[in-house]
């Protein structure tokens, strides 16, 4: 159905859904009625302050950290792939998933953790589902985090090897962040003056990075990719053990400006496109089950597969680990949590809807796209674009071209503004990716430390040796490196070893989201004692919908996709999915037992 739709219609729909969702569902229901957040309740950042991980942060700094950590490549790649369904269904899934599932999941994970001394959502499960649930959940998440770590080590190494300007920017970014931290915390300069200095230097650094790429030739017989991998492993270790106030907070404070600019420019561009009368030339709907390369080229039904295709842009299990990992330990005030948890998810959804789906929908098939592609050195792809539309550029190329095209048309010309925005989109993506790497390392360390908490009372010395931050981070980085370093042959091509199990990641991650949301729902029911049916159902129904969607999705993937993968991935990814399904069933059984216990307690209380 290729009926051109004026760009203002989806834009207004997205903006209205987010504003209404935030104020009516987020603020009035979740914050006021369910969690009953209070500005006077002390957060773990104060009660457990340690100067390393538990440190209070300004809410905008923390928003920047949370947003930059939860947003990897997912909010961009997933929706770009899902455009094969047309733009209507992916946009609907993003909006629905954001408001009713993803943002609820992120906010409740954050608040559940805050009310449990900053412990992870996996440890929160102990309180409502028992001790077994906690350790099964922790082991499952630890394994998933190692996979994330391997993937982001590899993705960053490839990015730096192929785009040397991104390497220059990363090299410059960290010292600037340390300088801003120094100005903010150790001088008498006002935060405004410190920020202005930091931003001015950052703008100069980005300009320098675009002009001066950083090349390395490989080291001691190993190639560039592997050299970057080793350097990044060193960085990930260091960044994960340094105090958060030293690097993470100021860096993410700076990131926030870049990322807000990215989303804000997309919003302005979409308004400009609407005012100029541009339409989405992409079809609203193509087919229910198109063939998708990421699913071994098999027909992929929108439901349940969409939960595996669009992850972070709609909802993601990784968010619950960030929210209940680094974010909850830095939250200074319970009243900041809605902006950070719920608002962070909506902002990421805005990346998917306003920076990917709407621009790609506009740029789907436009005669003057050739001007932009030639201006950014992609003249060789013009013929493919003209024959097949924007999907011919691949998910990342399609995103960059869509972003550049929409802004070029809305704000100036394709050859100048469009080309600059094309490159700006690439820089924003690189920023998302690098921050996720070191946050993932720190989170893996947290999971490791919580896994061994049983040892602490029995043998404090051994616990300190095993679970101190240096050991925890070193083990995480070493395993991540071991998964990203060796090459294996997949489909006749040498690829990093983690790719043997990577096809299972989408399902693993989304299953984690379902289990985290169920845990949070049970926490709301059993611990917060929110037992008014309408409020309880507001959490329980989305949680069960997500669990059913993801479980059916994993079963569909196992039956329809797995047999068509290369043999080595059938073994690797297939094993991981089977383990995931086993964990899924075990935890759901423990969940039902926990819910029954809570109901029995409620009945006993009523009868008394």
């Amino acid at each position, binding site marked *: 159905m290729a009926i051109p739709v004026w760009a203002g219609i989806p834009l207004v729909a997205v903006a209205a859904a987010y504003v209404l969702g935030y104020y009516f569902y987020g603020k009035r229901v979740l914050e006021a009625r369910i969690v009953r957040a209070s500005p006077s309740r002390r957060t773990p950042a104060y009660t457990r302050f340690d100067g390393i991980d538990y440190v209070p942060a300004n809410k905008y700094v923390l928003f920047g950290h949370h947003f930059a950590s939860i947003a990897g490549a997912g909010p961009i790649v997933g929706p770009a792939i899902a455009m094969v369904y047309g733009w209507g269904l992916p946009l609907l899934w993003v909006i629905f998933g954001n408001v009713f599932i993803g943002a609820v999941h992120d906010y409740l994970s954050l608040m559940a953790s805050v009310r449990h001394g900053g412990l992870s959502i996996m440890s929160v499960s102990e309180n409502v589902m028992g001790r077994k649930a906690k350790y099964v959940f922790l082991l499952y998440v630890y394994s998933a985090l190692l996979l994330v770590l391997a993937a982001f080590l590899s993705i960053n190494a490839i990015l730096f090897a192929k785009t040397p300007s991104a390497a220059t920017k990363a*090299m410059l970014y960290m010292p600037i962040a340390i300088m801003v931290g120094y100005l903010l915390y*150790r001088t008498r300069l006002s935060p405004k003056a410190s920020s202005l200095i930091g931003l001015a230097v950052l703008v100069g650094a980005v300009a320098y990075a675009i002009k001066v790429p*950083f*090349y*390395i*030739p490989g*080291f001691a017989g190993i190639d560039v990719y592997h050299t970057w991998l080793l350097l990044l492993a060193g960085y990930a270790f260091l960044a994960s053990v340094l105090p958060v*106030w030293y690097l993470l907070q100021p860096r993410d404070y700076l990131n926030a400006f870049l990322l807000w600019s990215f989303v804000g420019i997309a919003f302005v561009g979409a308004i400009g496109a609407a005012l100029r009368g541009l339409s989405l030339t992409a079809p609203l709907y193509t087919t229910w089950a198109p063939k998708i390369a990421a699913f071994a080229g098999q027909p992929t039904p929108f439901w349940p597969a969409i939960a595996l295709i669009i992850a972070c842009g709609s909802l993601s299990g990784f968010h619950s680990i960030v929210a209940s990992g680094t974010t909850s330990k830095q939250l200074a005030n319970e009243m900041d949590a809605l902006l950070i948890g719920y608002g962070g998810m909506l902002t990421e959804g805005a990346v998917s809807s306003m920076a990917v789906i709407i621009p790609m929908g506009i740029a789907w098939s436009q005669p003057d796209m050739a001007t932009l592609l030639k201006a950014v050195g992609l003249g060789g792809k013009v013929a493919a674009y003209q024959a097949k539309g924007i999907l011919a550029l691949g998910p990342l190329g399609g995103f960059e071209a869509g972003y550049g095209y929409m802004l070029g048309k809305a704000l100036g010309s394709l050859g100048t503004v469009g080309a600059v925005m094309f490159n700006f989109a690439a820089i924003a993506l690189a920023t998302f990716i690098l921050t996720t790497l070191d946050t993932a390392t720190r989170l893996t360390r947290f999971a490791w430390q919580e896994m061994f908490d049983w040892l602490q009372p029995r043998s404090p010395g051994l616990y300190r040796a095993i679970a101190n931050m240096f050991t925890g981070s070193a083990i995480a980085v070493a395993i991540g490196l071991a998964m990203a370093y060796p090459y294996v042959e997949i489909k006749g091509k040498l690829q990093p070893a983690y790719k043997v199990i990577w096809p299972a990641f989408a399902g693993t991650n989304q299953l984690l989201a379902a289990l985290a949301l169920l845990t949070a729902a049970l926490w709301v029911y059993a611990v917060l004692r929110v037992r008014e049916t309408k409020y309880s159902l507001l959490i329980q129904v989305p949680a069960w919908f997500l669990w059913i969607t993801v479980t059916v999705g994993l079963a569909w993937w196992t039956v329809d996709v797995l047999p068509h993968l290369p043999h080595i991935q059938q073994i690797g990814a297939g094993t991981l999915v089977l383990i995931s399904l086993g964990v899924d069933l075990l935890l759901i059984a423990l969940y039902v037992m926990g819910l029954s216990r809570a109901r029995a307690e409620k009945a006993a209380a009523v009868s008394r």
Partner: protein
Amino acid sequence: MDAKRGAGAVMTIAGMLLFLYALVAGALRGHIGSKTAWTPDAVAVIVGWFLIMIGPALYFGSTPARIVKEVESKRG
């Protein structure tokens, strides 16, 4: 000044000098490093980067007084 702070100061100064050298060299040549061989600016930027990450952390050591003061005032 104790040994840890001293080492931190030396690392910070050395890191900044190496980093600045690499940036200036890169600006003059139009790129840092080379695809075929290790050049002094490429080594300098990497070593300087790690020194700048570690050095100030060792030198300053403890949590900034501004943060500690805020935590203590809220804890009461």
